[in-house]
């Protein structure tokens, strides 16, 4: 069963419903001893990075998630859940993230374009062979965020979206850790296919 990490950051209903529509059972939990029984985990979330880390730490979920991912178990971060996977963020003062992926989270530059980056934007695939993109067209997905990831390793960038000249990391992946900056559960067919590719992975850590 798919475990959704519930750490008090935002609306988990739409992710749950989307998985149900794909025919998958899932459960919400904030307890590591329950979540460790999942076949796959999803880390969703909206809100601020700093609050997100505080809420994870309060529940000892930070240690649990790192351990889970380092063992090669599948993890999907969504929106804030993607940003939290990186080293640190400058949102509300510098704070440390889960450090599973190398890179920093920075704010969009004021003035050049509207903040938040909110709405439908087109994806550009950098790694079309990645399993999350299986049968997915290079279409539009729904973003809502004011900070974006500056990834240190280019090979984690599976797909990007151009916003005011900035190549915004949209899908990142390293081994069993996958993540999307946009909301796949709100991105119509394109997003639903990516969710399906994640939940239909065969076994654990099959992709290297």
């Amino acid at each position, binding site marked *: 069963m798919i475990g959704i990490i519930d750490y008090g950051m935002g*609306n988990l209903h739409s992710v749950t419903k*989307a998985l149900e529509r794909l025919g998958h059972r899932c459960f919400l939990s904030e307890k590591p001893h329950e979540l460790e029984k999942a076949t796959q985990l999803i880390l969703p979330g909206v809100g601020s990075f700093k609050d997100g880390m505080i809420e994870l730490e309060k529940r000892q979920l930070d240690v649990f998630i790192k351990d889970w991912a380092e063992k090669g178990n599948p993890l999907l971060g969504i929106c804030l859940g993607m940003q939290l996977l990186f080293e640190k963020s400058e949102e509300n003062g510098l704070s440390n993230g889960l450090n599973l992926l190398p890179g920093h989270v920075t704010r969009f530059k004021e003035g050049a374009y509207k903040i938040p980056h*909110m709405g*439908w934007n*087109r994806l550009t695939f950098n790694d079309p062979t990645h399993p999350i993109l299986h049968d997915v067209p290079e279409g539009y997905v*729904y973003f*809502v965020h004011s900070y974006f990831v500056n990834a240190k390793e280019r090979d984690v960038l599976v797909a990007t979206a151009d916003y005011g000249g900035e190549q915004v990391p949209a899908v990142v992946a390293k081994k069993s850790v996958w993540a999307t900056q946009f909301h796949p559960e709100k991105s*119509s067919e394109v997003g639903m296919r990516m969710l399906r590719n994640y939940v239909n992975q065969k076994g654990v850590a099959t992709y290297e």
Partner: protein
Amino acid sequence: MLTKRIIPCLDVKEGRVVKGVQFVNLRDAGDPVELAAFYDEQGADELVFLDISASHEGRETMVDVVEEVAGTLAIPFTVGGGINTLEDMKRILRAGADKVSLNTAAVTRPELIREGADFFGSQCIVVAIDAKWDDTLSSWFVYTHGGRRKTERDVITWAQEAVSQGAGELLVTSMDEDGEKQGFDEALTKKVSEAVSVPVIASGGAGNQQHFYDVFTNGKADAALAASIFHYRETSVAEVKKFLREKGLEIR
């Protein structure tokens, strides 16, 4: 680059789409869940539900409707109407709405925007502004209570205040153009759009496909909302989007 968004708006009363609107070809004319699915299929980028229920039971029903819609839609949707407290916002968002739209309650108590933005994030909080031009004072004024009460607030000043309180998006309805089908108020939309950093949804006045093009280009709107033009099948979401795409706009 972001696409321009097309947003159909449904007025929901006591759990049903309000009477007087004829959705001739649909099986259950008044079911908001079926209509939501219909517009989604047509390529709507987002949906807005406006709760115009008068009774407490009607508002409770709205929560059920939101929950059901959330279970079938894979596009964002916003719920507005009768949201007065943080508790109201929680109930609607927990039921599965992606955003709430505040109008009268935000004007009466602007801190409500801040409370909502702090709790759920700015991306969840849309502030709806009903605007009407005042010839004598040469300015747009904010109206509340479904357009029945004029306030002393200037639209541009209020738009900026709402954003500084944490609004993540503004839904600006021109009362002058609403229902006239003569086009959106481009001057109003442009002025608001240039005054704030957040996306602006233009509403009121859509009569044909060209009107959408005009409000996106001249009016600098990020999204355009319409109700009757879609409900009465004068055009469809798919047709509007095709028209705009052919004109060279970025459209999903």
